[in-house]
């Protein structure tokens, strides 16, 4: 067998050839085996037997999260159930869950995609990977588990939670790679410090593969300082596979798409029109070789862009930029679109506050009111009320000039904002 990493440096024409062949098969598979696609292709006049180039992808209709929900439980499966080895479901916080099924082959490519993150970080055989993503229906835990095994490393499946025990294991077992959400990694680091440890010295971490939520450069820098390791951002979603659709390399300059398994487009989320490389818009994914639950033009609702040009690492797979957030996370405040990441960008310019925050939306006299609660940085000495009020005012002013929106800033006690072991809850909508 050839080295599984060779494809990462293959000429892009070769990758496009794989994508075209895969897209032809996927479109036919969807059309013939999933009634939803039969109808939507026919309605759109899209002929899956007449595909001749990758430009034909853009002629196919979209599939949305709502379509997947409507197909619950097995409506989006293209193979008989006896071919399906595993099933995952999205968190379904906003309604019915979406279901993803995996054949043996699907699990294989998933493991391969996730393992690339560890390989990018120089990890593999001889490394100890602690998987502190929750195991279960959520794709984070088992995706990281299969990927770690594929990479050649030893896996410790701690799952999320029991933070002090995580920390003891991390120290005593000599963990070299940590897979979990970035907010949980921060909680682990802070808890270790509270336990009297210096995680930068007491841990032996080389890298953290952190995803399932967007995080700022500031949070990354804080994690890397506290834990003395390299943080790689990983992207994925249950609807198309799970974590591993795209992962950063050590350049930390964009996430390499697994282009031999997915075809990516960026569209204007309002009009659905294709956008050129470099422009920000909604990511649309088409699977190339998934068997159980293939997708053609799935609207991820994630906002990113295709980064133009080649990566300094020499790998040929194109990169998406770090996520700006989900279209569903976008806050509409008195008619202005605001992404939480934009608020984070402003916060980064204030060393007085830590990167832990919460945004609360309320309504006062019929108007939207946004309150940003930010924790004081433990290194920053406050002794005068006036100084804290000045800081709140300065932050509010900076938010206003950057976002054209009034955001009330409240400085709160350190660690008063609830920590989570999974995805951090940054936005509380009380409207």
């Amino acid at each position, binding site marked *: 067998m050839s080295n599984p990493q060779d494809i990462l440096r293959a000429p892009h024409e070769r990758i496009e050839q794989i994508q075209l062949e895969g897209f032809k098969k996927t479109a036919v598979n969807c059309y013939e085996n999933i009634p939803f696609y039969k109808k939507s292709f026919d309605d759109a006049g899209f002929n899956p037997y007449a595909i001749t180039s990758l430009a034909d992808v853009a002629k196919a209709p979209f599939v949305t999260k709502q379509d997947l929900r409507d197909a619950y439980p097995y409506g989006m499966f293209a193979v008989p159930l006896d071919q399906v080895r595993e099933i995952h479901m999205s968190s379904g916080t906003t309604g019915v869950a979406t279901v993803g099924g995996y054949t043996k082959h699907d699990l294989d490519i998933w493991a391969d995609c996730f393992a690339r993150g560890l390989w990018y970080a120089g990890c593999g055989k001889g490394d100890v990977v602690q998987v502190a993503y929750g195991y279960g229906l959520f794709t984070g835990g088992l995706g990281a588990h299969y990927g770690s095994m594929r990479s050649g490393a030893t896996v410790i499946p701690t799952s999320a939670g029991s933070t002090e025990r995580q920390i003891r294991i991390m120290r005593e077992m000599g963990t070299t790679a940590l897979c979990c959400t970035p907010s949980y990694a921060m909680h682990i680091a802070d808890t270790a410090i*509270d336990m009297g440890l210096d995680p930068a010295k007491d841990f032996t971490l080389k890298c953290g593969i952190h995803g399932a939520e967007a995080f700022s450069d500031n949070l990354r820098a804080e994690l890397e300082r506290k834990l003395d390791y390299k943080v790689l951002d990983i992207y994925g979603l249950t609807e198309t596979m799970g974590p591993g659709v795209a992962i950063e390399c050590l350049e930390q300059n964009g996430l390499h798409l697994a282009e031999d398994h997915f075809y990516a487009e960026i569209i204007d989320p309002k009009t659905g029109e294709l956008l050129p490389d470099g422009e920000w818009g909604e990511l649309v994914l088409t699977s190339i070789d998934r068997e159980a639950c293939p997708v053609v033009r799935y609207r991820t609702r994630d906002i990113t862009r295709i980064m133009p040009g080649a990566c300094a690492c020499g790998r040929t797979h194109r990169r998406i930029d770090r996520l700006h957030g989900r279209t569903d996370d976008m806050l509409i405040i008195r008619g202005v679109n605001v992404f939480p990441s934009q608020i984070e960008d402003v916060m980064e310019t204030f060393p007085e506050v830590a990167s832990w925050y919460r945004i609360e939306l309320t309504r006062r006299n019929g108007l939207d009111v946004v309150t940003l609660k930010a924790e*004081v940085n*433990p290194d920053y*000495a*406050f*002794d*005068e*009320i*006036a100084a*804290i*009020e000045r800081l709140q005012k300065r932050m509010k002013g900076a938010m206003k000039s950057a976002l054209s929106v009034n955001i009330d800033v*409240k*400085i*709160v*006690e*350190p*660690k*008063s904002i609830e920590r989570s072991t999974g995805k951090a809850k940054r936005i509380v909508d009380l409207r």
Partner: protein
Amino acid sequence: MIEQITVFLENKEGRLTALCKTLGDAGINMHALTVADTADFGLVRIIADDPQRAVDVLQTAGYRAALTKVAAIQVPNEPGGLARLLETLDSLDVNIEYGYCFSMGADFSVDVLKVHHSGEVVSAIEAAGFRVLTNEDICA
């Protein structure tokens, strides 16, 4: 000059109780406590035995606590005691950030003041005949 403990607290039920209990459980005795509050948060300022240990105990318990140097000045416990001190400060053109007072027995009161350029100010106050106290003077 004395070391005062300043704690940033959310304006929330039970926070001050929890703070005092934390110090009490650690065997630290307080001699003065004052709260400056806004709608959202408060700053609690405390004079206590062993201020460094008090700060360590509070930080370990998760509080945002820090030491601040403030001037503690002894004045006679009689009408006009504080006014005479403030007149002196006015004549020195010193601006006060904040202050609070408490009495120590029948004879003396202590005025605690946060001023900028405290070194020069303290020398000037002493030159004007006031006694500037240390932590030991208060916690003895």
